[in-house]
């Protein structure tokens, strides 16, 4: 609970307005994915291929690699966070 939450007391019950908004956001996100015709396993394939390429140039920390699709304004963005340990010698 943040400071504001602490001042205003414990959170009230989730309202149907909150519920509608949350469900709608999730549904619309999935709708947009579907329209892009990008099923989740394709995303995993993309991540693996991407890592192969990057690993040619960097030593990467595979365990901490994170690839997600995120909502940015009205666009869906592919976001990859790939921690690198060091540059590989050429």
């Amino acid at each position, binding site marked *: 609970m943040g400071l504001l939450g602490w001042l205003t007391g414990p959170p009230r019950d989730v*309202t*149907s*307005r*909150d519920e*509608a*908004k949350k*469900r*709608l*956001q999730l*549904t*619309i996100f999935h*709708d*947009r994915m579907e*329209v892009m015709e990008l099923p989740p396993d394709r995303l995993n394939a993309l991540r693996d291929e991407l890592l192969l390429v990057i690993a040619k140039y960097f030593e990467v920390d595979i365990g901490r690699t994170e690839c997600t699709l995120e909502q940015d*304004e*009205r666009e869906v963005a592919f976001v990859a966070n790939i921690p690198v340990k060091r540059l590989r010698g050429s």
Partner: protein
Amino acid sequence: MPGKTILFTSGKGGVGKTTSTANIGVALASQDPNINVCMIDMDIGLRNLDIQLGLENRIVYNIVDVVEGACKARQALVKDKRLPNLALLPAAQTRDKSAVSPEQMITLIAELREMFDLILIDSPAGIEQGFYNSVAAADEAIIVSTPEMSAVRDADRVIGLLEAQNRKINCWLVINRLRPAMVQSNDMMGVDDVVEILNIKLLGVIPEDERIIVSTNKGEPLALAKSNKGNGAGQAYQNIALRLTGVEVPLMVFGENENIFVKQFNKLKALIKFS
């Protein structure tokens, strides 16, 4: 300067496209007698814009007659009885959406652009051919949605389809049938929720207003009523028409805690520019 075309669309049916087209059309025409406004009913087979405007008895020809060459566009246009600078191009009632093609719409609207400053297109519900006929020559799109889940979801789908067009079509949001008391008690999504989800520019908010039904009964769009003041739907439609011509009108405040809407409201540049 050729006229500008504004599309009214929603995906979901019954959210207020026709009501919005009729009211914004009469508001624009009544605010400036020098603006010539044409409204096109694209709901072929299910026409309704004529009764909203009270012009149902004056129809001789319709849009299908025009594209099939049975009459000239000028002959099919129905002049409004109150406003000499307002006309309706009615839909055919006995045909279906496939009676017109997008190419025919582009040709027809090119002709209408020479006669009118503004062309408002009332699209049918759905995302099938009637939708694509309506989109074919649109410059701007007004997305009408109620603050309900299925309406907002369908609006998002339609915005996506408009964004996928080869031409750039600007999308504007009109939230219709807002019930301030329900928003206040957190039983309905508010303006800020819908704007956040759809992420397009807000053009205006129309409250739920039973006078809309009465005015439709009379064939007199509420925006024309003499008694328009305060925060009813008629005034809200007048405000939208003003914003479209570049006048800055703040969003209506429906309740005590809603000043946030006013802050959220993005200032508009004039959508319609007249030389």
